[in-house]
């Protein structure tokens, strides 16, 4: 670890999962017209593990992220973060949890994860200061973290508005990881970026896997996630239809939706015969 003592030992022991989602139901809409957004979702993330969560528009992937971060309330089931049941936590308890740096997040639009009025340096030191790290040490740790997201020290004095999209997202990633949290939720962190920048962020995330922080990497794009994740979970219409190692899910998908998803990804070497197979899977999923 680059940045001094990374995590405190007061959370659950290292053996337990950092995230345990069990039988999670979430509903949206007024009481008389409630629509399910998530149904019976179970997901467990081990310390230091990177889990890719794949889902398309309306699959409920962002709802899951928001529920884990306490921004959406579960209607059934439970969410345990770092050994602490957070399902019924109110805003104050959530603030305390965030202050302890147990869980952090990165959104698709870095401007949502960054305060536009804070310089890069302030953005990076703020979460450390909230944890009670003395200012000088915080500045030192922020500076020491920069090379890991391939940012130059010159940028420390800049505001988010003065950075490129890729630089901003790297600052957001650094801010989420600088305290060495046990869990970081990344919701479509590369979707708004061009191809070259996307590859760079993915490389950075891959390197950060070794840091001991567990990452939940949410994306609609299996290709982006596959290179970074130990395991992937596939969300379809609010249900987790398949979970497995990246290799198994990509090469031996079992659920028809996963098979359709993988068969749909545009590849340079796809066979024309795949069309009939996709058609059969669509028919199967419709029933």
């Amino acid at each position: 670890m680059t940045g001094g003592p990374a995590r405190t030992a007061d959370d659950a022991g290292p053996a337990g999962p950092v995230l345990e989602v069990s039988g999670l139901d979430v509903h949206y809409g007024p009481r008389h017209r409630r629509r399910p957004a998530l149904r019976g979702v179970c997901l467990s993330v081990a310390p230091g593990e990177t889990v890719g969560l794949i889902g398309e528009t309306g699959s409920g992937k962002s709802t899951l992220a928001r529920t884990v971060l306490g921004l959406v309330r579960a209607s059934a089931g439970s969410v345990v973060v770092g050994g602490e049941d957070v399902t019924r936590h109110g805003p104050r308890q959530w603030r305390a949890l965030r202050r302890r740096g147990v869980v952090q997040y990165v959104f698709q639009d870095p401007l949502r994860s960054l305060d536009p009025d804070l310089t890069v340096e302030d953005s990076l030191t703020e979460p450390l200061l909230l944890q009670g790290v003395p200012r000088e040490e915080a500045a030192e740790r922020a500076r020491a973290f920069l090379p890991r997201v391939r940012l130059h020290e010159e940028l420390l004095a800049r505001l988010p508005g003065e950075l490129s999209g890729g630089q901003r997202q790297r600052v957001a990633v650094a801010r989420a990881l600088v305290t060495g949290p046990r869990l970081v939720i990344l919701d479509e962190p590369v979707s708004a970026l061009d191809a070259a920048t996307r590859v760079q962020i993915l490389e950075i995330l891959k390197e950060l896997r070794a840091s001991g922080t567990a990452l939940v990497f949410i994306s609609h794009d299996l290709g982006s996630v596959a290179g970074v994740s130990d395991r992937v979970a596939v969300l379809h219409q609010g249900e987790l239809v398949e979970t497995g190692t990246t290799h198994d899910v990509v090469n031996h998908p079992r659920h028809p939706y996963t098979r359709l998803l993988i068969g749909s990804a545009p590849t340079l070497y796809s066979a024309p015969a795949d069309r009939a197979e996709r058609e059969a899977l669509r028919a199967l999923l419709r029933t």
Partner: protein
Amino acid sequence: MTTVSEGLLPRRAPGAAPDAPAPPVLSLRDVRIGDRAGDREIVRGVSFELAPGRAVGIVGESGSGKTLTCRAALGILPAHFEVTGGSIEIDGTDIATLNPARWRALRGTTISAVFQDPASYLNPSIRVGAQIAEAVRAKKGLRRREAHRRAVELLRTVRLRDPELVHGSYPHELSGGMLQRVLIAAAIAAGPRILVADEATTALDVTVQAEILDMLAELRERTGLALVVVSHDPAVVARLCDEVLVLREGEVVEQGPTHAVLHDPRHEYTRLLIAEHEQYGLDRFRTTGEDT
């Protein structure tokens, strides 16, 4: 690769002997497009021929001139651009000779197009069925009731699951994938021979994209529709096209059969595009064993 079942193609006799290659429905010869203000040449020599039932792909980054090339072929170049050299023929007619009235007659019935953002091409306050029926009435001179029937039929052709329901919906009630299908339905309403799809699936989820690409492939096989597919993603072009042009800064750096260009690229720029795709595409995670 391009076996087209006999008897399905084409609706209009190509006017040639059964076994002779059909004459191209669209041909571009050394097309050059310039900026009127700064006499800058933005597209520098694009040539290809497109026969009925065939598909040509144009790959390149934004700013490479792929959209301008399509717009030139559709006669809808933005105000300050013009074709400065070469020629474009649609169904044997040099478009330089067309007046606005003849362009109107040609668009929709011979050449048609769909673009990236379907919602911006629909009127938000009119039900989508009425908008397609309008296109049908204008181009085909059908009466109201026939136009309605034809619109529902078209919505079924683009594989919308509940065509009657979609017919009565407003654009905001439909998903992006459904809207793009509605736009394709409107684009093929008057039975064009050429459909230009410019980044038409770029904004869609991957399974929806595949469904639309499959639908276009089927349409092409069944009706002999010729396709011009424009995309930044070489894999999208690989799925649909027989021939591909790689465009960079207005110049064709490589052109040939899709299989040859994408699997054995000669130009370093083509290699770069493919490497970029492979760096985050799914191909690299697939093991070669064909067990399922």
